[in-house]
């Protein structure tokens, strides 16, 4: 039985944690929230210097050639500090898409630049508040040109490259594809959007006859998109767990130091049970996500159901921990000065990034039915 991360992976985790605690204290996150920057370029540069943007990029393309388990531990630490950087969009989604569905030429062109930090990439599926499905993707690709609108696109205001989910206008069963588009091309119109979490930029992108290139998708491009979402669900789960643990630890510190009615508020069962419930949800999320990580690493048959379970559990854990952290703080937790807000905001950005939980639960049960467990 070896259901744990290796010593090397734990060392990497410590290394990333140390870098972030030194270079990405909560003031940096606040700086991005209150300032004009879309992200913290200095924290990003540090992550690039550590090689982390190329963690899972093969060495032949200038990456570290590590596996998904390493990415999981990195994700956890980024979540713990609520890092204001485009890691989930550029690494979990765009880089993984390129690795899996890029042509050789596309990989040679872009992966080294992603590893070296020369460019930042993102992934665009959503077009409106209507849940995307293979029949409502309006963004179109034909004769090398991309037209349509995507929003909200994470880090869309400043990313250099976008993997865009498109309809190829041919009306076949394989009409959904992924297209690569440079966001500095003529005809790309970007508008930064006001969102719940301004520490992670989101933009509206309008493409007006923009040069783009199709990727090497399978016959079922929609399934390819789902596969990227499954991978991202597991990696994001680790990020959510990191954020949930940080929220719990913040709530605990406060409960130990705040006195009311002559005693520590952490001595009241109402608070103790609330914090115990945070812990329980976090452990359930961790255990499901460990299995997700294992399926990711083994490219296992249960990847889909493990991704859905990780997604459901980790979203529940982070949403609960971040909201009850504010509740534990009382009024002070609701102020702009308090740091509770960063996790509260981030919990929704991460929780909604891959579609609604209602949908993930439905997918989970569909998998259960297919596996014929019952």
């Amino acid at each position, binding site marked *: *039985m*070896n*259901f*744990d*991360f290796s010593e090397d992976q734990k060392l990497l985790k410590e290394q990333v944690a140390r870098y972030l605690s030194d270079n990405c204290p909560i003031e940096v996150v606040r700086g991005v929230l209150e300032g004009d920057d879309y992200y913290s370029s200095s924290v990003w540069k540090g992550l690039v210097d550590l090689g982390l943007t190329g963690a899972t990029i093969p060495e032949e393309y200038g990456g570290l050639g590590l596996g998904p*388990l390493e990415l999981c531990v990195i994700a956890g630490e980024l979540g713990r500090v609520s890092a204001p950087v485009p890691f989930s969009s550029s690494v979990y989604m765009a880089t993984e898409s390129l690795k899996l569905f890029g042509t050789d030429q596309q990989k040679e062109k872009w992966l080294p630049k992603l590893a070296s930090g020369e460019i930042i990439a993102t992934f665009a599926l959503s077009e409106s508040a209507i849940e995307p499905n293979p029949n409502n993707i309006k963004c179109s690709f034909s004769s090398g040109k991309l037209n349509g609108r995507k929003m909200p696109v994470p880090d869309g205001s400043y990313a250099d490259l976008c993997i865009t989910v498109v309809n190829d206008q041919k009306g076949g069963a394989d009409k959904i594809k992924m297209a690569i588009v440079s966001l500095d091309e003529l005809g790309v119109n970007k508008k930064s959007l006001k969102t719940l979490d301004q520490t992670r930029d989101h933009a509206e992108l309008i493409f007006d006859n923009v040069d783009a290139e199709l990727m090497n998708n399978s016959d079922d491009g929609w399934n390819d998109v789902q596969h990227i979402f499954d991978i991202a669900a597991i990696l994001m789960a680790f990020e959510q767990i990191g954020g949930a643990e940080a929220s*719990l630890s913040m709530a*605990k510190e406060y*409960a*130990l130091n705040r006195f009311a009615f002559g*005693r*520590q508020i*952490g*001595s*009241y*069962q109402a*608070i*103790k*049970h609330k*914090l*115990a*419930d945070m*812990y*329980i949800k976090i*452990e*359930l*999320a*961790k*255990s*499901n996500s*460990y*299995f997700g*990580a*294992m399926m990711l*690493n*083994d490219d296992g048959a249960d990847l889909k159901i493990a991704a*859905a*379970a990780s997604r*459901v*559990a980790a979203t*529940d854990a982070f949403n609960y921990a971040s909201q009850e952290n504010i509740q534990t703080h009382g009024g002070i937790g609701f102020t702009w000065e308090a740091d509770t807000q960063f996790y509260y905001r981030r919990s929704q950005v991460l929780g909604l990034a891959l579609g609604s939980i*209602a949908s*993930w*639960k*439905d997918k*989970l*049960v569909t998998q*259960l*039915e297919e596996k014929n*467990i*019952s």
Partner: protein
Amino acid sequence: MDFNDTAEENNFRLEVREWLEKNAPQDKKIGGYDSIDVEESALERAREWQAKKADAGYAAITWPKEYGGLGASSIHSVIYSQEEAKYNVPSGIYDIGLGMCIPTMMAWATKEQNERYVEPALYGKEIWCQLFSEPSAGSDVAGVRTKAEKDGDDWLINGQKVWTSGAHFCDFGIIVVRTDPKAPKHKGLSFFFLDMKSPGIDIKPIRQISGGSNFNEVFFTDVKVSDNQRLGEVGEGWKVALTTLMNERLAIGVPKSADYSSLTQLAKNVILNNKPAIKNDLVRSKIADWYVQSEGLKYTKMRSLTSLSKGETPGPESSIGKIVSAPKMQDLASFAMDLQGAAGILNDPDIALMHSIFQNQWMSAAGYRIAGGTDEILRNIVAERVLGLPQDIRVDKTVPFNELPSGR
């Protein structure tokens, strides 16, 4: 990451498999005991199986060899249980004795006493029970009122214990009693072991809400116990009781119950709004939630086993098991009954869907949320021992026990 045995673990597993194949009874009818009406023949078969295991060293794998154990690690014990679970062997009767009572004896009794009692318990010749809970001492188990008073060199025990599993077929018991009512609660306790056939012990089965009887009330009237049956010093019984309670969480789990897969099966077979219930979004959402909880607990166990396999103590994550599974048992059963509409109230296995498993589970789950630590006490334990939050303010710590308010 993998779920594989190490080479050494695999060898042990093969050895256990081979032994079970040769020795485990093939009789499909031998189950555990889930009712108080254990027939003598069932007890006899349990004894036979226990003796076989003890001879092979598998009855107490983690105990030192001098006590008849195998001197092996907890992971070996888990491997044995995994393999044994594939057979329909007698189970349950010795869990409390070997899981809680004898480890307490081993920690506190004299060498001579252990030479006398450990082996017969290990071989299943003598069965032990635990006498802690009382009508006025449940979660607050240090609040026991059953008293022991000095009578020459002996002690006389008077009072009542409750929720004692197997008391009527047990040979010996361990008991915590009050020896000084003027001392504060925890300071006035002492701890004994005693012969359950002693004169003055009266055992009555408790009828549970479910109609079944798995436990007893035990009444003590001038039950004489020799002073050399005392474990620990007079007034230090709580310290001894903690040894037992530390082992309790290892011995008491939640039984296998109807889970998301049974619910899915039911949902495929009942109709809601003219569609199979499995097509209903609320039903799907609930199945997903319980799947996530069950799988979460399953993989939490894998994480703990990984620690055991490395020879480490499992982390605090193992403490969430019963807090999650007991309410899940109840909620899932209640939801499954709801899917059956008005017929959900049927509790006749011949008529009700899926032989009333959900109805029965719903009744028994109400007990599992209490047994071995209530949902609330377990949350206190997580908050205090895992998260390091302070204990609640205790108004009873320094007051003489007999001056504490006691309600009705």
